């Protein structure tokens, strides 16, 4: 077993532990010993009916949703950073999240409730919105042959602002649905609908399998268009699959929990610093890192002002930004000590 696989296994073990702990903390604390007595030793009386309801109908679905959303944002971040060959890209910054948000807003405004193949309309509309926005960004890139990844990123930021304005206009014109849209946009992980969780899980798994199956070509793609073409990569087809994989992961997260920033940016960076840049390890590690960060953020959001619950997106931004800047500073210092110029 090599170093990277040991780190990934340890990270998943840590995620399992933190997820378990997240079940016991909240506005009402539940003793792990009581849960163990009820679940492991069949002592039904060790948990009250309320505690059972909280665990099975609130915290367990919420924990699963949090893992899926955090994992989706982590792998979407890896996908978009690779696509734009830019470490600043993430679904939030390049506008994929905004595209997905517009898709869900339209679904809410038009009252789409339908489900196809067991998947909710909001998830489909989020996927279509995300795909369309990235397609427009890449379309701008293909029109201008000299587009750099930075200009594509800026195009994404500009389009994202425009799409956010359209969402605001839709809210303005549909006053009766403002509360629903606004609550959803704020981002919440309190999902107690197992069909929603199934939708999120299916989209996450499709995104994960798609992106992970592209690990080797993703490594080649980072070396540039000419190098990757010389290694047998069909660039157009590859980019289509990459956009689809990253967008489906974005749709998984946004349709379940609204817009949660920063995870898609920091999870791949932390993962890269621990297991290196090879996508075979980077993708599962980013999924695990994203899920762990979101579990932590959610616990803080639920407990810091209990019984009031804060929007988890504010916690990810408040904690993620200084944490990320701290890591950057540590890394710069380590580079200086190692005599690197980068």
């Amino acid at each position, binding site marked *: 077993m090599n170093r990277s696989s040991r780190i990934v296994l340890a990270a998943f073990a840590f995620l399992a532990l933190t997820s378990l702990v997240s079940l016991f903390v909240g506005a009402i604390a539940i003793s792990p010993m009581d849960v163990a007595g009820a679940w492991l030793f069949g002592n039904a009386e060790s948990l009250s009916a309320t505690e059972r309801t909280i665990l099975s109908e609130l915290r367990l679905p919420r924990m699963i949703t949090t893992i899926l959303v955090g994992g989706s944002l982590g792998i979407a971040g890896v996908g978009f950073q690779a696509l734009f*060959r830019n470490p600043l890209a993430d679904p939030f910054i390049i506008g994929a999240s905004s595209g997905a948000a517009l898709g869900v807003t339209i679904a809410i405004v038009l009252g789409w409730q339908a489900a196809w193949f067991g998947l909710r309309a909001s998830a489909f509309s989020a996927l279509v919105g995300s795909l369309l926005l990235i397609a427009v960004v890449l379309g701008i890139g293909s029109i201008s042959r000299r587009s750099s990844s930075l200009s594509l990123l800026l195009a994404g930021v500009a389009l994202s602002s425009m799409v956010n304005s359209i969402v605001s206009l839709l809210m303005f014109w549909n006053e009766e649905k403002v509360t629903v849209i606004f609550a959803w946009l704020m981002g919440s992980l309190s999902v107690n609908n197992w069909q929603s969780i199934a939708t999120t899980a299916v989209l996450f798994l499709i995104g994960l399998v798609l992106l992970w*199956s592209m690990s*080797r070509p993703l490594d080649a793609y980072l070396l540039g268009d000419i190098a990757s*073409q010389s*290694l*047998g990569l069909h660039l157009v087809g590859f980019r289509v699959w990459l956009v689809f994989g990253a967008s489906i992961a974005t749709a998984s997260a946004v349709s379940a929990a609204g817009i949660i920033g920063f995870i898609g940016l920091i999870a791949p960076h932390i993962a890269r610093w621990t297991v290196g*840049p090879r996508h075979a390890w980077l993708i599962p590690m980013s999924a695990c890192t994203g899920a762990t960060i979101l579990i932590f953020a959610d616990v803080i959001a639920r407990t810091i002002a209990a019984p009031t619950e804060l929007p988890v997106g504010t916690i990810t931004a408040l904690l993620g930004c200084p944490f990320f800047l701290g890591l950057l500073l540590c890394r710069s210092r380590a580079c200086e000590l190692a005599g690197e110029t980068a």
Partner: protein
Amino acid sequence: MTHLVVDQLKFSYSDRVIVDGVSLDLRAGELLVLLGANGAGKTTLLRLIARHLKPESGTVSLDESDVANWSRRRFAQQIALMPQHENRGSMLTVIDVVSLGRMPHCGWWTPLSKLDQKRIDDALVATGLAALRERSITELSGGEWRRMILARAIAQDASVLMLDEPIAGLDLKYQYEVLDQVRQLTKQNQLVTVVTLHDLNMTAMFADRVAILSGNKLLALGSVEEVLQSDLIRQAFDVEVSVVRHPSLGTPLIIPLHHAAKLGIDERSAEKLHPGDKDV
């Protein structure tokens, strides 16, 4: 036996013709050096052969099969290109990058086989990079970087090797070593190798045949002695040169004339400097 035929390739950007009706015919075990002034179309010609650009007209055939109809993967199994520039931002290690040379053979998912590992190890040894295999590519010098890209092209195990300015930025020792390795590989593995260079004297030492591009057309194609002549070099580079015979190697030695004047050499006096040697 590998047989690469480039037939009347033509390519333009907007209205500007970059490559105009170039034809080449190359056999296994042959090293062709492409020469030409900046902007003569050398890199574009390589990229046309490598199918990175689509020609307006003309074809590229390998063993009598038009490569335009090949899948990109089949193409990469047969033709490897070492580009002039690559993105250096990724934090991959040397072994990661060289291993990517096996991607055309093992695809997107299949784990590397023992044969793949052997090809990678051989390529690292051949380029003197075995000791740097775990080093991050962001920490490589320019010369180490070029050798790594060459190692990846070697690991690709293609029958046609195209190298775009492989010695640019290298010191004299590595210039010699890289070209010597390329020549040895060409002969040992019976490859067809096309190299773009700017150094005429290195060309004279290592090429089997030389092609000069000028005005986006093929000005000359032939043996080293046939092509490295002062009038052809003047046409291609707009520089007066004196061509004398190398005193120990016997290959043409090209000296720009204003330097020759400083040294007290001109074409007529070349024989006086090295009695017995004649202009070629």
